[in-house]
């Protein structure tokens, strides 16, 4: 017995790793109309977020003001 949502906010029984794997298989064996699939960059971002988001936001929320200052600095520099 498992809950419908995993602890990293993913779908039980259909986690994003599975989505990524199948999309990877689609590159070699056409699986159907997926209309471009996940795309590599969005897939990697989401994989990272699902996997490491818990720790990432644990840190981000505590240092939000500092991160925001850094973000503004980087934006100005760009």
């Amino acid at each position, binding site marked *: *017995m498992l*809950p419908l*949502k995993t602890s990293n906010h993913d*779908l039980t029984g259909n986690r994003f790793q599975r989505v990524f794997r199948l999309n990877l298989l689609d590159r070699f064996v056409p699986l*159907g*109309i997926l209309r471009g699939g996940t795309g590599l960059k969005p897939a990697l*971002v989401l994989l990272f977020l699902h996997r490491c988001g818990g720790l990432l936001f644990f840190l981000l929320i505590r240092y939000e003001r500092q991160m925001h200052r850094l973000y503004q600095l980087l934006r100005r520099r760009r």
Partner: protein
Amino acid sequence: MACTTFYSLKKLIREGRKRSARCDIVSFDLFDTLLIRRIHDPDLVKLPVARFISSLAAVAGISRSWQAVQKLRDTIEQRHRDETGQTFEDHEACYPRFMRELLVTVFGEQFDERLLERVTDYELAMENTMLVVRQELLDWLHELHDEGKRLFIVTDIYLPAQHIRVLCRHAGLLDLVEDVVSSADSFLAKASGKAYPLMQQRYDLDYSSWLHVGDNPISDGLRPAEFGVQAMVLRDGTEKFRKALVKRYVNYGKGKSFYRGRALQQLMLPLEAENVPRDDLYIEGYNFLGPLVGSFVQHIAEECRRLDLKRVFFFSREGYTFKKVWEQCAPFLFPDGCLPRIDYLYVSRMALAGASCAHLGLTRRAASIAFLPPGNRDFRDLARIFKFDIEAMTPHLRRHRLEPDTCLSPLHAGYDQQNSVHFLELLDDEGFQQEVRRQTRPANDALMRYLEEIGFFAEKEVAVVDIGWLGTIQRFLYQAVRHRDDCPRIVGYVFGATRGIPFEQDLKNSLHGVIYDRHRFDLGASCLLYARDTFEEACRAPHPTLDGYELAEDGYRLKFRNCDDVIGQAEKQQDLYYSSLQQGLFDAVPRFAAASALLGYSLEDYRPWLNYLLTAKLAFPSTKEILAIRNRHHLDDFHGIHQPLAKKVGRESTLWNRSELALRLSPLLRLRHFVNHCKSIIRN
């Protein structure tokens, strides 16, 4: 100690319990404190409301796109905020005022108060679908209430307190609090700090004995602390994480259509106390079947609106599930109510087979359908299906050198090609066909009485909905009714159209496969064919199949199959086994409807994701999934009891019939099956 920030809800509540022991008053912020949102951006709730207003305007003969309505709303709301800002420190707006102005602008003289009520009710209903109460805070609220503390909810939002109370009542909060305070009523908000003195005066509160809990460091932290109110601010990293994911999925979905269905499922996920452990079948019903069936029904409703169809008939027994899904989806997806009338039609292949022969006789196509199941061998099987009296038919058979037990199927021992030739001659024999028509006429008359009573002939066009797969029920139904002048045009929608036997479409009868249609090449959707029985069993109604229509003194009688035999008992067992799968599906549907209404997408947007779901779950499932989902029993009332020759039927087994050992150990099993599946789809 005036303002403390907490990064964990548990720690906040622990500390809150200590502090509240010394306080008489505890106030809470509402949004993102007591209630969390499924979506990352609260403004997204305005979009379905804009669509609702646009559709109401269209009904009133006014053409306004929903984007124009939303833009107008934003403009009016901003103007109201600017006007408020001239007198008050907080630039607040009040929902009834700006919404009334919006509706008057759009509808002009056709505006009335009932319109404002409908729009408000829909917006609050949509808000409620997206709000979830934080269970731990609710439990703490109960404790505080039992301790006799004075509890308040105070929020900065454009909704006045009377509307906020609707949200609080839905969340189970209203009975616990003394009152709800909204900045929309007084234009004094927490952001400027003005809300706190207002509350202090109104309710005679003591600042020194007051604890406030919220999520905003300024409105819920700094501002109350300025008055000596103890403030506790929750900065929840988990919530930010969850919303960041939702935001990614929704934003990626704008550019890549693959993510639209995934964003839909992310919004459907249960939160807080909703997210309890469930068994495997429930999870599959919720996460797999829910979006599929929901999208199917949404598409049918959209098509019916587009084609202006006034009646929809859901064919038993799978139509039972589709009808239930329709009833749950309609209030959210189509709040204007402009939907056809829906009915459940008691039909089945067995019941309609005989009735369909009353005017056209036994056609070659009907006979070939009857011989599709490999267990059907001879004329006795035909007689069983079409309810012929064999004794009366025997002279006609003998005239064409046939006996009732002459093998007519090439899959069985004793078959001779000449038998098929004689059989085709029999079908061309007018005497035989007259006998067929005579014998099946009473069933057809009973069917006509039933259809007349249910209003099948009342409209010029009707939609019919079924699971699939050859469209046999619709085919037989059309054959049974086409002789009538008032026969409606039948537009059929099936979950999957395999079209193994060509479906004769004409001006009055058409069939469309929604999720899968053989006429529309789609490898992903074709994975449906891996486990058709599973879908039938999952969607089936909890009543026996219909066996036939009989004339009665007062009209007609529906004859249902007897459930006391071995097959009936097996079916009941299967129903019991799949009950949690069905429950998962029914629990998913309201969340599907709310999420789909919010996102504004339709089946074509979800199709890439649904194709992925079908491919992943049916073509590349895990062993555990196959063992859990595959059905134990499946009733096919068409199927005879004869055993076909093994060499004719072949020993090929499908992926879903393989043993557990093969599923676990056989290398590249799924890929091999998928390649074979692709070959058969492309070649056929």
